[in-house]
């Protein structure tokens, strides 16, 4: 229980003009163990001292700061004690009428909600696991893995590099040379593998296990345990975070019979050409003679629905590079390139110009009509060319520039309930769905990099490896401080389960987007604290309400709901409860406020970590209390989901059935509950959404439970 609660009210930003501050001060000062103070500008430089004194004087251990939105000045109002923010400026004043009775009621309701909440929360201390490993395991010894290892080791961290082949290098071993990597981007780069292996060997803090495969990964960030099979031995290693760098596998050219692969001996893939060049002999497979002309077909099996629908990002530059190989070693051999678009983007435009500028290199846009063999020569007929007519080119060899697919099978063998490997986005890549957060992962502490994450070339793979290693390092440092990872950075709260009431229904285990929960034989969930992202989706899912967080739990929100004043049923003033997701929707409300967009003062907003954290009980509590309607504002679900916790808002839709049951039991209309997906820049729609909803509620009538 609280001892003394302090309420600080800011009258700046016109809050004093909108509200009768004296009335509020008087009202709350009268309460037992509550101390109220108001100030003209709580955020000014001098306030820090004033607030310190206030806390000291009255022995405050719970503080309410009724001022601006909690999105601002979180650091400045952190005095080490429990603090609740009441957004008088953004949620009470700006969207509503000055000195209006309803605005006053709104302000008092929010203060009451905070008082209620404070009784049921405490400041989290942060869970720090014992025996944290500061090793980062890199699964895969191709260029991404090697580069990640070097970057991490160079920053002073212990690295465990696991590679299934006998030698490190991955596909880099097969390459003769690389595309240009530095200005002026016209010269091929020598294969960097020897140099990279050299760099790798210079670090004492890299442990390299070759001919090794991970057969099981268990644990949590800071404390992963990896069972590694090396030849016949099983080794156990510990790691703080993991980077998946298992690379790609080339698209099977066998699928491209329409381009003659497998039919004509002299139709080969770009990988096969690279091997030939590396061995120093470019010869026709059919008769071992030197080819007089070689034709490249771009986008072979890429950008097509029946093959790989995406672009692999490297084949255009790769073909240009291979053209250079051919031209350098066979002076009289012509090179033809049939393309859709030459994707030598950015600075590689210079490389494109360089390769083009050769008498015996010929490029045209075109679609391959068919390939035939006539008199031991391949005749490739091309349509939709730049010549305005179809052409037939005679070539000795055809090279198919095939794409890449991610190598995501049987690598990590995660001992997670939700699956053995990292979840994938479209096309099986382990990419993050977020543009701004490319390393965002659905398995906390396990990141991916390189071509397993997204199609990319070597230059990008190396850059990617650095970025992923930064996140892996950061993960360890955050775990050491008891903090969670993206997006609730800085959050130290932890989930707790009251096992006495747990019925092993496994809903939390299944619905956690991050696989935080393991389960024992009975099906009872096991908490892996550092995997937790503190979204509280599990809390929302639990029908028995056994899950809680120190500063966000079932009771704290229930008490908030119950503390709202309910007008008499005859007053004809509805009460709407709005659960607003803190990520996109809540800032949208703040921005609407900054533009002084007006909406109804009958709405009571409770910010939640994710719409998925909304528990059914809150709905029944709200309806029992007399709320006429409930709005749920969250981030967009679907293919282009914006939900920061992957499927929180999607779950709300799925749970709508359960919620419907609640309403049915109470004999209330299902239309009283509405889910709205709001993007952060749609703040201008808020007034119309709320007004429209209120009209609907008006038609439905007041909640009959009001006043009971």
């Amino acid at each position, binding site marked *: 229980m609280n001892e003394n609660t302090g309420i600080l009210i800011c009258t*700046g*930003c*016109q809050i004093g003009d909108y509200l009768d501050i004296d009335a509020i001060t008087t009202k709350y000062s009268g309460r037992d163990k509550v101390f109220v103070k108001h100030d*003209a*500008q709580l955020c*000014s*430089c001098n306030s820090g001292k004033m607030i310190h004194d206030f806390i000291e004087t009255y022995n405050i251990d719970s503080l309410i700061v009724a001022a601006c939105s909690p999105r*601002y*000045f979180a*650091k400045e109002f952190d005095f080490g004690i429990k603090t609740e923010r009441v957004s008088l400026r953004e949620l009470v004043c700006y969207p509503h009428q000055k000195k209006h009775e309803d605005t006053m009621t709104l302000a008092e309701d929010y203060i009451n909600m905070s008082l209620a909440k404070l009784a049921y929360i405490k400041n989290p201390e942060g869970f720090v696991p014992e025996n944290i490993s500061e090793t980062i395991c890199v699964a895969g010894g191709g260029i991404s893995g090697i580069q990640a290892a070097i*970057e991490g080791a*160079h920053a002073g961290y212990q690295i465990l590099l696991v590679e299934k082949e006998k030698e490190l290098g991955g596909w880099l071993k097969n390459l003769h040379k690389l595309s240009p990597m*530095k*200005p*002026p981007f016209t010269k091929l780069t020598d294969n960097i593998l020897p140099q990279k292996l050299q760099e790798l060997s210079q670090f004492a803090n890299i442990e390299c296990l070759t001919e090794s495969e991970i057969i099981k990964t268990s644990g949590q960030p800071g404390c992963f345990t990896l069972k590694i099979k090396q030849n016949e031995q099983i080794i156990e290693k510990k790691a703080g975070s993991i980077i998946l760098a298992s690379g790609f596998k080339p698209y099977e050219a066998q699928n491209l019979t329409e381009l003659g692969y497998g039919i004509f001996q002299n139709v080969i893939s770009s990988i096969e050409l690279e091997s030939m060049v590396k061995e120093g002999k470019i010869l026709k497979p059919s008769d071992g003679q030197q080819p007089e002309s070689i034709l490249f077909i771009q986008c072979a099996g890429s950008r097509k629905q029946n093959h790989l*629908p*995406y*672009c*692999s990002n490297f084949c255009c530059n790769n073909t240009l590079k291979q053209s250079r190989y051919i031209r350098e070693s066979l002076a009289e051999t012509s090179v033809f390139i049939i393309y859709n*678009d030459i*994707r030598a*983007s*950015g*600075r590689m*435009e*210079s490389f494109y110009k360089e390769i083009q500028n050769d008498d015996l290199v010929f490029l045209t846009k075109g679609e391959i009509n068919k390939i035939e063999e006539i008199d031991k020569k391949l005749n490739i007929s091309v349509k*939709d060319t730049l010549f*305005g007519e179809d052409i037939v080119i005679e070539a000795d060899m055809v090279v198919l520039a095939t794409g890449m697919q991610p190598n995501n099978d049987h690598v990590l063998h995660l001992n997670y309930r939700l699956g053995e490997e990292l979840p994938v986005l*479209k096309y099986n890549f382990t*990419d993050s*769905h*977020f*543009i*701004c*957060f490319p*390393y965002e992962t659905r398995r906390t502490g396990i990141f991916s990099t390189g071509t397993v994450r*997204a*199609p*990319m070339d070597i230059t*990008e793979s190396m*850059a*990617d490896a*650095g970025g992923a*290693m*930064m*996140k892996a*390092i*950061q993960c360890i440092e*955050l775990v050491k*401080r008891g903090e969670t990872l993206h997006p609730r*950075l800085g959050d130290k709260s932890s989930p707790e389960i009251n096992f006495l009431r747990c019925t092993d229904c496994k809903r939390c285990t299944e619905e956690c987007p991050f696989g935080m929960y393991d389960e024992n034989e009975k099906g009872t969930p096991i908490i892996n604290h550092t995997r937790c992202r503190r979204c509280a989706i599990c809390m929302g899912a639990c029908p028995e309400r056994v899950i809680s967080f120190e500063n966000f739990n079932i009771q704290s929100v229930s008490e908030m709901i119950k503390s709202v004043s309910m007008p008499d049923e005859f007053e004809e003033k509805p009460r709407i409860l709005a659960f607003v997701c803190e990520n996109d929707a809540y*800032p949208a409300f703040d*921005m609407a406020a*900054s*533009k002084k967009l007006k909406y109804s003062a009958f709405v009571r907003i409770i910010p939640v970590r994710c719409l998925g954290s909304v528990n059914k009980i809150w709905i029944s509590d709200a309806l029992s209390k007399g709320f006429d309607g409930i709005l749920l504002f969250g981030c967009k679900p679907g293919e*282009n989901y914006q939900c920061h916790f992957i499927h929180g808002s999607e779950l709300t839709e799925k749970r709508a059935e359960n919620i419907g049951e609640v309403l049915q039991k109470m004999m209330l209309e299902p239309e009283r509950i509405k889910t709205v997906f709001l*993007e*952060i*820049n749609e*703040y201008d729609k808020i007034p119309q959404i709320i007004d429209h909803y209120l009209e609907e509620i008006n038609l439905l009538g007041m909640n009959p439970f009001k006043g009971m």
Partner: protein
Amino acid sequence: MLNQKKILIVGGGISGITAALELAETGHCVTLIEKKTYLGGNVAKFSYYFPKLCPPHCGLELNFQRIRNNHNIRILTSTVLDTYKKTDKSFEVKLNSKHEFINNNCTSCGKCAEVCPVERSDDFNYGLTKTKAAFLPYPLVFPYKYSIDDSVCKQENCGLCLDVCPYNAISFENKSTLLTEEFDSIILSTGWQAYDAGKIENLNYAFHPDIVTNVEFERLLSPEGPTNGQIVKLSDKKVPESIVFVQCAGSRDINHLPYCSAVCCSATLKHAIIASEKIKNVKITILYIDLRVSGRNEDLLQKAKEINHISFIKGKAGKVNIDLQNNLDIEYEDILKGKKCKIPADMVILATGIVPSTVSGFKTDNELFIDEELLPQGIFATGSVKKPIDVSASVKDAGRMALKSIQSMANE
């Protein structure tokens, strides 16, 4: 035990912010300087990212919250790098910090803007709108406070804002302070600006309001933009019936930018899809040389190809003409059909390219990007100041350079 480093990051766009946060959350001490009065750089002006068509402010909000909640980051706006000197183990840096007329006491109440008598061209909207000299750059701005454009402010000759500000947040002092500090490493993330389309002859950019650049069109899509988020012609505010996108306007051209700007094709696809969703039956033509979208962005291309009224024509737009009735038409060669064509257009969008915003004192390569190899040890560059890349790649690179910045001293 973490070996805490002190890092200076020059430039507060998405790259700088990302690098700063990755470092600060790992536990290092970061000072982020930005020459404007606010952070956000170019992405704050975007309305949508490709290929998800999601709002950039979503990610920015998250990042700004992370900055607000982090004790390891110090932000200095209106500050530029003056000089640096390599000392034994670190860099002695001089930062030139210009005094801002509005200080941190500002609560964004907006009273100063209400009374301000001076108008200025709004650079946030590329000069297509005006704001008062006292203005809020954008609703989600960080730091959340108003700014005064000191180049147009009448200062003591007016002083109306001084009278109405209840928080003592305004003072007119024209001074700069030189701060001397020490850092273990420096990251340059000064970003880019759009190429001046006025330099491209034959496209007549400066001569008709309905010929806009892609970055200007991006602003048209924003509710804070010149047309409140409506896609209308700037000339007569009517909804356009036909839009033509001109790719490689100034890029891949030795007379302008010789390199490819890498992002314009994806940006155009994004614009085309959004325009076709917002305006029923608008006829959209995209004139390109090569459609350079790669990886995931290919989905965007597929999506656009499925929309009936978007047509893709291989053929660079050679001329944008303005006739005597002030109507626009575009001349191009439809290369696959072998026809020289001229089509009318209500609106022309020039996909202009990226020019890196380099910092003086750091060597650039043959195409004016910062050459990483020529940077002194301990100084790094990230983002589009190094090469033309999109947001996702910038963020990726920022993470990597952040890691490099804490490595450089680890071995010593």
